[in-house]
Structures are given as structure tokens and as C-alpha cells.
């Protein structure tokens, strides 16, 4: 072994007791929760995370009740319990709620609670962003679920295929789905940004990349997948909504559009989505298993391989949902091959868990019961997955109950059971009390038996030919008994969920507090005393092991007595450490914002745009958006990039860290980068759409059609490139403290950007392209508008920087704002260049 100066040791002597008490009092004061109705302005990860999780469980219960309604309807042939129309709404909302309002949010909410704790951080880097995400989720979720009670819900199935959801579905149901879920997806991307930056930049000193808990690897991969999976759906939803609202024929063959494009965009999201749900859930098992076999995981590197490998390959599977659309055999074969390949990493991690159990000494427990039950169910789902990955088998099983059975085995085994395992495992960290072992076991057997009774028969119902999504079936086709058994099983399953729910909410006032670290786990989230304090971790430890609570001597004592970093809140502010991404060397003491209602207002005003837009009330919607942008500016102005009262701070153990970092050393810069990667992915999806039309349709562009010309797009490209260059100069001159030059450059960039946006729209405008006539002008217009909107957003960025410098809040040393604006402008420039090349250059090449 080699090669380093040793890490700092904790303080050798215990700090005086009076000092410890004073430090604790200051920390408690800094991290205290607001009282009374102001409680809802809290932004602590533990509070927001718990609201988030609880809300997701409420939606889970709602989706579950809908499932029971469906099972009542299907229990006997020819049933009239639900009308066909209601049934369509119920299965659509069931699928959508479970996917968008339970599975994705619950992954993010659990991570919001536990990621900082596993990393020994006091909170995530952007607490208010988490709160914003939560309020978006709550608002969007209630709006969507509520639609069912007015008979106005979407009814095209959770994957919303046009033309079923366009030409054949008037009313606002589909609009609700498209706009409501786009809004919620934005919240999901916000959470992903938070989780990625948290994992990479907020680790405790010494927690090198080879030491981070496996949960964090999984969350990192899943959050990165969100960035590339959600944007295609947001882009697709935008296209479909524009078709519905303004009759631009993106998916309508009469106007040269193509409904299969929707399937591509949807499943480019939809298949990775399954793994976005599965990975963070299996991650809980990766934490539970070592704890209950009392040994480190076997094959840490192999599990990392599995997480990263699955994350990649899951993007090469989307066409296996489209095997019956008539694509060439070679295409099917490629996607079939990737669908088989993804089973390799998925299997590797399961073998690692089994090897860990075999190598250790198993302690029986309720979380372990759910973990094993979940794995058993998931493996069955995985095996049917390998079956349907074969195109020839899929042709037979497509759109039958076999698929329904398969996907529920995957998602319930791969997500629901592990999440319940997580509830039983982590619950003491939330309330200081354990859940009941007895109720947990009863619930397990109800759930396990109920699940298999419901879904095992569906394989056979499907193979006998029963299609999914039919509201009833005639007697005597061989479906009757199987369906009745499934319905009975569903109620058994539902009763299991009810027992878990009761265990979670039952009053526990008379129950004694749990022991500290009740399961004798080895990772940092088990540091808190019972009940846990709001400050997260008493002092931020120096970590040198994957299981510090097992392997570092006197670790808990040293943390408790404040012998590590940041044991105090001298200035009464919330603080945590920022470290480097690979070796976790401390580089900044980050001040975190406290409670605020601003995220709430931002969510409601921006949400107003989407909700009012659903009813096509465009002017009020735009007004709400403008107010929303104002609220966000107020939020940024008052709470971000604050200049500290001193440049540096002593954080303990002889370490002094800066309080302010800008550019790529700041967490905000990383957040902009990650967000823009997602935005750029959405743009790439639109470009994909353009070339999809070209590939598939001979009449794209239609013969004799005039394009936007070469002149105006090129003028726009040049103006926007100049705006980009002016922004770079503004950044440089601000750094050089040449205020006058900065103002000139920044103002010039604003003017150039506005001119560039106008020139971009002038191309299709002056050539008279009518987007309702054909998909070619429609997609050209859309790319031009997309780029122009980016330029206008860039104007907001640069205007904000001008205002900050004028107000004395930005200067040569404190320049976070202009660095972030410059980063944003890199993406604007790239977007503009690609757009110009596509809309002006492509017709020439053709």
C-alpha cells in the first residue's frame, strides 16, 4: 500500500463540555424548524423529503384503489361495474399515477432524505430547489388526479399514443396529461440536479470515489439517466400539445406527420424510466443486505459496473416496445440484442447480493424479508423480460395480459418491495421509533401471496389471448377463472398495503425510542441519535472506510463530541462542506439558505402557466409565467450568490476554507451545467424528429416547398454567436474589474441576442411558412422558436448580471452570476448553430 500523507485525525482531546453544549445550542438554533403555519416554509431535507415521500405514498394508495376498481370490473365476464369510458380513464390514471406520481418521486424523495445523511452532509446543496420540486409535484399531482373526479381524465393509456390521444380525444384530458406531467418532469429534473451535485460535491472529506455508499452510486446513475430520459418526453409532449392546441401536424399523417415518432420519443423516455425506478430501489437492498449479514458487500466494483452499465444499456432498449410497428428486421434484432445484454449487469448485482448473504451471517429481520421477497419476484419479472425481448415471442405477447404480468413483476419486485424494505429499515431515522416487526411480517405475507395470486395467473390470461386495456370480456374464452383469481389476489395485496400503511401512521407515542443505530449498520446515515436532531450530523467526519461505523475506532464518539469538521455554527448560519468530485478534498464551506415560502410561490406561479394552459387560456397562462419568472428572479436576487462577510472560515482540524467559489468550483455552476444538458437533450430530440421525418417520408420537405431560406438563419446564427462572444468578454472584463468595459459588453450581448432571436424567427416568417399546412414548416418553426426562446432567456441571464453589478452585488471577485450566464450562453450558441445548420443547410444538402 502506498502513497499518501495521512488524513487529519479527529481532535485528540475531548472539547470542554461547556463548549460542546454551546456548539450544540448554536447548531440547533441555525437548523431549527419554523413554527406554526410557517412550518410549511421549511426547506430542510428531512422535512421536505418526508412530505415528498408521504405525498408519493398517498398517490400510490390512490393508484392502488384505481387498480382495485379495475379488478372488480374484470372479476366476472360482462361486468357493468365501470363503463368503458370510465374504465379507460381509470387504467390511464392508474398507470400514470404509479409511474409519474409514485415511482419517480419516491426515488427522489427517499434520496433527498437519506443522501445527505449517507454523505455526512448537513443538507443537499440547494435545499430550496428541493422544496420547489416538492410543491411542483404536489400541485401537478393533485391537478392530474383530481381530473378523474370530474370525468375529465386522460384516457389514452399511460403512453398516450396518438392519434388515440389527438384526433380521437377531444376534451382536456390529454392536455392535462401533457402539460401536467411536463410540469412534474421539470420538478423531477430539478431533483436530479440536486442529487447529482450532492453526490459529487457534498461528500465528507476522505470519502473518495471508491468509498461512497453503493446507494449513492445508484442515485448518481439514476439521476443522470433522468437528465437524458425525461427531455425526449418533454419534447414529445410539447409537439403533441402544439398539435392538439394549434393543429401543427407533427403526428398527423394527413399533414406529413407520423404517429410512430411519438412512440420513439415516448419510449426513449419510457424504457430508461423503468431503470430509473429500479436502480434506486435496488440500491436500498444494497444498503440493507450488508447490514443484516454483518459484512461489507461482496463485489463493490461489480455492483458499480452493474449500476453504470445498466444505466447506459437501458437507453438502447426503447424499440422493444415497438416490435409490432413494422420496422425492418435488422432494427428489431439490434434492440433485441441490447435487451438481452441488459440482463447481464442486472444479474451481476443480484449475484453480488446473494454472494454477500452467503459469505456473511444472516440476521433475520423484516427489511431482509422484503428484500429477499422483492428479489424473488423481480427475478421472475426479469426472466419474462428476457422472453419478451425476443421479437418473435413478443409478436405473440404484445399488448396482452402477459405484458401486464411482466411489468408488474418487474416494478413491484424491483421497486415496491425494496421501498417497503426501506420503510422498515430507515423509519427510525425519521421518527426515532421502529415499525412493528409483527405487522411487517403479516403485511409481507399478505403482499407476497396477494401479489403472486394476482399477477401469476395474468401470464396465462395473456397467453390465452386476453388483450390488455379491455374493460370487459365475454364468457367462455378461458379467461373467467384466471381473472377471478387475479381479482381475489388484488384484494389480498391491497390488504397488505393497508397493514403497512397502518404501521406507518399508527400513533407511536407510547412506544419507546429506538436504540441508536438499531440494526448495527456501518454507514453514515446511522450516526444520528434518537430522535434525530435537525442539524443532520453533529460534526462532519473524516471518512476512510466504506463502513466507517464498523471500521473507524471511536467514530461515533468523535462525531458526537464535535471532534471533526464544522462542529459549530458561530455565525448562526446553515453550513456544509463542498469537496472535490473524485478524492473528496474539502474546497469550500457552503452557506445554505434557510426556510422560505419563495419556492412555494415559484411552484404555484409557474404551475399556473401549465394549468391555465390546459384550458387553453393562453393570456392568463402567460401572465402566470411572467409572475413566476419574477418570483424566481426575486429568489435568486435575495438568496443566492451572497457575498460572505469574510473571505474564509476556519472549519476545524486546522483547515481554513473559502466561503465563496465561482465558475466550475461552485455548486451553482454545476447545477446550470446539468440542467442545460437536460435542456440540450430536449433540443436534440427535436432535431431527431426533423431527421426522422426525412428518413421515413419521401415528402419531407414537400416538393416545391420553400424553406426558411439561407440569409435570415445565417444572420441569426452570426448575431447569436456575437452575443455569445460579447458575453465571454463581459465575463473576462468583469474579472479584470473593468466595470465600464463590462457594461458595454453585457449590454451589447443583450442587444445582439434580441436581434438574433428576431432574425431567427424572420426566416420562416418572411418566407411565409405555414406550420398548420405540413409538418415541414411546423418543425422548422418549432426549432426557430426554441432557439429564439433560448436567446431571450440568455437576455434575462445577462440583464440579471448587469443589475447585480449595478447593485454592487457582483464584482471582480464575486462573479458567480456571470460565470453561470457564460455557461448558459455556450448552450445557446450550440443550439443556434445546430438550428441554423438544420433549417438553412439541410434543404441545400438535399
Amino acid at each position, binding site marked *: 500500500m502506498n502513497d499518501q500523507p495521512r488524513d487529519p485525525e479527529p481532535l485528540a482531546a475531548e472539547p470542554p463540555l461547556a463548549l460542546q453544549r454551546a456548539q450544540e445550542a448554536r447548531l440547533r438554533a441555525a437548523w431549527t424548524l419554523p413554527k406554526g403555519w410557517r412550518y410549511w416554509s421549511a426547506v430542510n431535507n428531512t422535512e421536505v423529503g418526508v412530505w415528498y415521500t408521504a405525498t408519493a405514498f398517498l398517490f400510490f394508495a390512490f393508484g392502488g384503489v384505481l387498480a382495485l376498481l379495475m379488478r372488480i370490473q374484470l372479476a366476472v365476464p360482462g361486468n357493468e361495474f365501470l363503463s368503458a369510458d370510465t374504465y379507460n380513464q381509470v387504467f390511464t390514471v392508474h398507470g400514470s399515477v404509479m409511474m409519474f406520481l409514485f415511482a419517480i418521486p419516491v426515488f427522489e424523495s427517499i434520496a433527498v432524505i437519506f443522501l445527505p445523511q449517507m454523505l455526512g452532509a448537513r443538507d443537499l446543496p440547494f435545499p430550496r430547489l428541493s422544496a420547489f420540486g416538492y410543491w411542483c409535484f404536489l400541485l401537478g399531482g393533485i391537478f392530474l388526479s383530481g381530473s378523474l373526479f370530474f370525468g375529465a381524465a386522460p384516457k389514452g393509456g399511460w403512453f398516450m399514443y396518438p392519434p388515440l390521444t389527438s384526433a380521437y380525444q377531444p376534451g382536456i384530458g390529454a392536455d392535462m396529461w401533457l402539460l401536467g406531467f411536463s410540469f412534474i418532469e421539470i420538478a423531477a429534473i430539478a431533483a436530479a440536479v440536486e442529487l447529482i451535485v450532492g453526490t459529487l460535491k457534498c461528500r465528507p472529506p476522505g470519502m473518495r470515489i471508491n468509498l461512497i455508499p453503493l446507494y449513492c452510486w445508484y442515485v448518481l446513475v439514476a439521476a443522470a439517466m433522468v437528465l437524458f430520459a425525461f427531455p425526449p418526453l418533454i419534447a414529445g409532449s410539447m409537439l403533441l400539445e402544439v398539435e392538439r392546441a394549434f393543429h401543427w401536424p407533427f403526428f398527423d399523417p394527413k399533414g406529413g406527420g407520423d404517429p410512430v415518432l411519438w412512440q420513439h420519443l415516448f419510449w426513449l423516455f419510457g424504457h430508461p424510466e423503468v431503470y430509473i425506478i429500479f436502480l434506486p430501489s435496488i440500491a436500498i437492498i444494497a444498503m440493507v443486505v450488508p447490514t443484516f449479514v454483518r459484512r461489507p458487500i461482496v463485489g463493490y466494483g461489480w455492483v458499480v459496473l452493474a449500476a453504470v452499465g445498466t444505466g447506459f444499456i437501458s437507453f438502447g432498449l426503447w424499440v422493444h416496445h415497438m416490435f409490432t410497428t413494422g420496422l*425492418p428486421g*435488422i432494427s428489431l434484432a439490434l434492440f433485441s440484442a441490447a435487451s438481452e*445484454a441488459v440482463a447481464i449487469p442486472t444479474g451481476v448485482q443480484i449475484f453480488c447480493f446473494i454472494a454477500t448473504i452467503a459469505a456473511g451471517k444472516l440476521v433475520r429481520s423484516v427489511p431482509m424479508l422484503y428484500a429477499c421477497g422483492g428479489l424473488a419476484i423481480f427475478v421472475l419479472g426479469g426472466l419474462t423480460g428476457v422472453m419478451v425481448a425476443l421479437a418473435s415471442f413478443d409478436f405473440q405477447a404484445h399488448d396482452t395480459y402477459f405484458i401486464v404480468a411482466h411489468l408488474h413483476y418487474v416494478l413491484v419486485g424491483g421497486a415496491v418491495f425494496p421501498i417497503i424494505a426501506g420503510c422498515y429499515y430507515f423509519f427510525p431515522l425519521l421518527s426515532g421509533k421502529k415499525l412493528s416487526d409483527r405487522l411487517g411480517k403479516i403485511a409481507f405475507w399478505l403482499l407476497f401471496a396477494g401479489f403472486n395470486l394476482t399477477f401469476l395467473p395474468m401470464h396465462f390470461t395473456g397467453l390465452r389471448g386476453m388483450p390488455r386495456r379491455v374493460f370487459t370480456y365475454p364468457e367462455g374464452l378461458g379467461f373467467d377463472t384466471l381473472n377471478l383469481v387475479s381479482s381475489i389476489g388484488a384484494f389480498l395485496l391491497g390488504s397488505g398495503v393497508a397493514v403497512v400503511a397502518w404501521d406507518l401512521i399508527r400513533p407511536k407515542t407510547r412506544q419507546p425510542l429506538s436504540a441508536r443505530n438499531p440494526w448495527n449498520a456501518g454507514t453514515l446515515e446511522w450516526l444520528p441519535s434518537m430522535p434525530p436532531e435537525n442539524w443532520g450530523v453533529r460534526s462532519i467526519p473524516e471518512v476512510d472506510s466504506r463502513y466507517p461505523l464498523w471500521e473507524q475506532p471511536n467514530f461515533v464518539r468523535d462525531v458526537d463530541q464535535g471532534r471533526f469538521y464544522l462542529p459549530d455554527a458561530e455565525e448562526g448560519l446553515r453550513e456544509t462542506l463542498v469537496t472535490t468530485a473524485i478524492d473528496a478534498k474539502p474546497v469550500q464551506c457552503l452557506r445554505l439558505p434557510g426556510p422560505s415560502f419563495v419556492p412555494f410561490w415559484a411552484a404555484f406561479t409557474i404551475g399556473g402557466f401549465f394549468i391555465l394552459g390546459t384550458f387553453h387560456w393562453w393570456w392568463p397562462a402567460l401572465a402566470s409565467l411572467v409572475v413566476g419568472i419574477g418570483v424566481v428572479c426575486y429568489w435568486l436576487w435575495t438568496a443566492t450568490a451572497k457575498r460572505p462577510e469574510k473571505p474564509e472560515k476556519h472549519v476545524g482540524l486546522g483547515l481554513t476554507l473559502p466561503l465563496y467559489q465561482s465558475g466550475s468550483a461552485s455548486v451553482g455552476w454545476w447545477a446550470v451545467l446539468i440542467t442545460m444538458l437536460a435542456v440540450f437533450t430536449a433540443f436534440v430530440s427535436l432535431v431527431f424528429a426533423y431527421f426522422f421525418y426525412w428518413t421515413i417520408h419521401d415528402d419531407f420537405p414537400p416538393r416545391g416547398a420553400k424553406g426558411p431560406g439561407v440569409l435570415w438563419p445565417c444572420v441569426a446564427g452570426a448575431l447569436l454567436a456575437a452575443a455569445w462572444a460579447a458575453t465571454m468578454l463581459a465575463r473576462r472584463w468583469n474579472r479584470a474589474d473593468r466595470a465600464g468595459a463590462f457594461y458595454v459588453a453585457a449590454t451589447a450581448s443583450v442587444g445582439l441576442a434580441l436581434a438574433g432571436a428576431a432574425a431567427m424567427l424572420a426566416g420562416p416568417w418572411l418566407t411565409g411558412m405555414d406550420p398548420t399546412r405540413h409538418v415541414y414548416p411546423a418543425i422548422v418553426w418549432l426549432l426557430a422558436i426554441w432557439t429564439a426562446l433560448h436567446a431571450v432567456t440568455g437576455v434575462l441571464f445577462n440583464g440579471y448580471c448587469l443589475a447585480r453589478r449595478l447593485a454592487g452585488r457582483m464584482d471582480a471577485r464575486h462573479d458567480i452570476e456571470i460565470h453561470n450566464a457564460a455557461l448558459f450562453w455556450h448552450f445557446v450558441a450550440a443550439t443556434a448553430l445546430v438550428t441554423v445548420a438544420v433549417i438553412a443547410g439541410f434543404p441545400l444538402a438535399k
Partner: protein
Amino acid sequence: MKTSAAPRLPERHESLWRLIVSPTVWAVHFMLSYITAAVWCAKYVPRSGTLEPVRWLIAGYTLVALGAIAWNGWDGYRRHRHGASELPHDADTPGDRHRFLGFATFLLALLSAVAVAFAALAVLYFHDCR
């Protein structure tokens, strides 16, 4: 802990990017193969048309991709074997961090190679655009 046995690490700064080179190569190979076949079959030949040029192109992509993956995997393996330490690479040292990233890179290269080979198998079975 000994302090002198291992040779010096070849680089001071390490990044996560090298970890994902092989899976990225897989992704590029996969998309190129898919797009080549899709464009060929949609634009240049009828439904029963030959796939011959596409098969050769995909074979070429595959050779390039496997070469890149082999290079990245070998690089990972070399880092994994750096010094005298063995798995599980769980010490809080730059050396074990280096070896761990190398090991993970190596494993991902293996997986990517298998996935590329799987994709390439497709051309063995299809001779036309049906």
C-alpha cells in the same frame, strides 16, 4: 502502512470520464448501426432490398468499437493492477481510488464488448430489409 513500495501514480488528476468511455462507445456503435440500417432501408432500397452494404458497414463499426473498447479496457486493467494491492480497493488512498476506477473501467469495457458483439450478431442473421 508501507509508504515506499508502490510506484508513483501516473496522473495527478483523475476524472470519471474515462470510466464511461466503453459504454459510450457501445452507445455510438449501437446508434450508428441502427441509423445506418434505418436510413438504408427507408431511403435507398425497397422492403425486400439487400442489406449487404449495411452489413459491411456495421462490421466496420464493430471492429473500430471493439478496438476502442479494448484500449480503454486495457488501460483500466493496467490501473487496476497498479502497485501491489489487490481487491477490494477500499482503502482511503489515492492508490486504491486509482485502482478502483481502473477496475470499474475494465469491467465496463468487458460488458460493453459483450454488448457490441451482441449487436453485431444481428447482421449475421439478416440479409435484407424485411
